[in-house]
């Protein structure tokens, strides 16, 4: 009955997830900062200028500055009360970034776990080598499973200006792939070379098909930016770092939520820890 499986595979492969644009409603934006006024207000203005595509003229911007930043419990309560649609913040809130350069800080860590609101993590303004905020033109959305990521792509596209560029990237983990191929090579019933080629083809085909669908869907919705595809096999952390440098990315958009755990999932945590100079939008 192997033919049943053959045809089922063909039909399953033909069953694709088409991109559907999900409009992001941003009625209120909250900046969470450990700066005091007027520095906090000035920083808030820089943020607005860097993200001209976020929200509309009627979007309400508010700021939770150092004076208003209470304990971790209290600040979560404050976020709940304000119920923003979008949060800007930076790592190492209330702690010197120089002491714990590779830490997100307890506030940000808790924020990513306790809320579903998109959090945009900016480079810490306290660091001396921190880059200046620049207007976002080049946005990259990354995932380890690109197909069906309507929200991720929609938000990334919404933050990309019409004259900007959007990269949709999917890096399939080479180490995991090789481990499976090693296992397959020990099973006499499966031809290793064929399996290697066919599995990789299919693994990369799905995100490619989805990116094509995104390109068409975004154009249909009136988006004018250039959409690029990066679908490859490689080492995620290393490759994403290279891609960010290579394309001078202004904003990286990635999923962090995992149904099975509170902590950030997959590649999100190491990326958010290591990429200290690139604004990250954690979904």
């Amino acid at each position: 009955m192997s033919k049943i499986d053959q045809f089922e595979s063909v039909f399953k492969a033909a069953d694709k997830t088409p991109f559907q644009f999900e409009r992001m409603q941003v009625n209120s934006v909250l900046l969470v900062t450990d700066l005091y006024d007027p520095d906090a207000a000035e920083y808030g203005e820089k943020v607005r200028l860097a993200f001209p595509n976020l929200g509309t003229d009627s979007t309400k911007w508010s700021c939770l500055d150092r004076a208003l930043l209470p304990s971790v419990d209290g600040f979560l309560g404050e976020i709940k009360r304000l119920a923003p649609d979008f949060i800007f913040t930076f790592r190492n809130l209330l702690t010197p970034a120089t002491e714990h350069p590779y830490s997100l800080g307890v506030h940000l860590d808790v924020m990513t776990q306790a809320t579903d609101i998109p959090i945009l993590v900016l480079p810490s303004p306290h660091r001396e080598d921190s880059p200046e905020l620049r207007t976002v033109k080049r946005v990259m959305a990354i995932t380890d499973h690109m197909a069906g990521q309507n929200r991720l792509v929609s938000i990334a596209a919404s933050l990309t200006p019409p004259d900007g560029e959007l990269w949709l990237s999917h890096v399939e983990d080479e180490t995991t792939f090789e481990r499976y191929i090693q296992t397959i090579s020990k099973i006499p019933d499966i031809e290793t070379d064929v399996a290697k080629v066919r599995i990789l083809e299919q693994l990369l085909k799905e995100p490619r098909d989805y990116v094509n669908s995104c390109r068409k869907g975004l154009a249909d919705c009136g988006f004018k930016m250039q959409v690029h595809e990066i679908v490859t096999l490689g080492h995620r952390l290393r490759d994403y770092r290279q891609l960010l440098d290579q394309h001078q990315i202004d904003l990286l958009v990635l999923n962090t939520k995992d149904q099975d755990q509170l902590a950030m999932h997959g590649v999100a945590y190491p990326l958010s820890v290591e990429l200290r100079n690139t604004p990250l939008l954690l979904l």
Partner: protein
Amino acid sequence: MLLLANTTEVSLGVTLLFSLLLVGLISCLALEEKIHAKKSVIAGSFAVVCLLLGAAFHILPFGRVVVGSYQPANFEEVEGDYVEPDGDRVHVDVESISDQSDPDTTTPSESAHEAHQAHHALHVDGHEVSMPVYIPAIDWGVIAIILGSSLFVDITSRSGLFTWIAIRVTKLSKGDPLLLLIAYAIMTVVFSAVLNNVTAMIIVGSLTAVSLSRLARKELLLGFLLIEGLLTNVGGLLTLISSVPNIIVGTAANISFVTFFLRAAPYVVVATMATLVMGAWVFKVRRLSTEAEKQEALQLVAGFDENDGIQSVMFFRFGAIMLGLFIAVIATTSVLPLISDLEMGFVALAFAAVMLWRYKSDVDQFYKAVDWDLLGFFMALFVVINVMEHAKVLDLIGVGVAKIIDWGDIGGTATVLISAAGFSSVTDNIPLAAMLAKILSSLGTPDSSALWWSVIFGANLGGNITPIGSASTLVAVTIIHKNELEMSFGKFVKIAAPFALLHLALATAYVLLFLR
């Protein structure tokens, strides 16, 4: 090829012994799933035993056979050498043949019998070759059709043509369950007719599982698969090449492709419609009512990409053209010059050979995919039936069949149909069809007789009574189990019986009213 008729006297004891072997074979085939043995192994084992016993009881016509002979168009051509049953070559002149078949001195039934005998005797100009007794026992024409068409269909399916059609049909339904059921039913019937029942069930069944899962309508899967399984056997009646019983009986009765289609099509249309109405009612398949539901279903089926399986547009087009040509040539084989002599098996093999050029350096993958179990089963089965013929078992069964036929035009024809359905519901319909075809031939049944159609309808539709009655219903049950749905033998019979009864009632009425 001429296989010399057997005239050896066979004792009743020997005939009964071989009858028991035949019952054993049929029982083992019915219990194929229980004894975990493939058909080819079962039939092959029985063929070995039959040949050994046949040799031991001296009932097999060992010796040289004549090949390359031809049947002359008129008696003037007959004068020359021909071969006696004992292998002696003798001279025949026109007068001696004319005397044997003088229409003025024979009754109609005698005339038919003479014609049958002449079919064997009036072959001339062949040459004798030494060949094992089991080789000419096999109907190589049937084997060629099955091998050629399965290769052709397998390669054509790589072009993405069938999946393209299947997905287009799915999209046309807009995801509405009732429209989807109608679309899949029509597709099942057409695919069963053009390809074969098993391939049709595999294609439509696997698409059904995927598409209903996509539409979040898995509760309808069992009903869909069951209806499709039943319709494969209805669709399998549409053309001469749709099922193996059609090929065997149709070939024996000299029914052309076009005649077969024209006679079977009205029944297939009516039976399909009746099955759909009953199926939609039994399995509560309804149309979507709200606009929101319709929009959601439409979006879900829109995700299917019919072009995904097409690796080469050129090959896709080539496959479509070749499929059209294949159907056209098969349909007109009997009237095409040269091709009519080479027969349908040649057509199937020739089209397979052309398609193989697409994968010329990689053809072994298709050879591996050939259903050797099925081919082995047919070859072994033909050998067993041939031995049974020499052991006079078929004559014995023929006496019983003749008695049924004697019940009259209506009673005999209807009883043959119902009996054939009953037998093919519990065992493979192919040995049944092969055996009954041989018996009807030996009884001198005219080509125009409705009895041939009784066997065809009964053998095909009997498969709808039980899950083991036909290979395609077995595939349907396999897909049902693969999708973790419960379907026991009893449950299948309970659900399918009303449909099967409807099909048989319609078939009996149709054969009696229109094909008699």
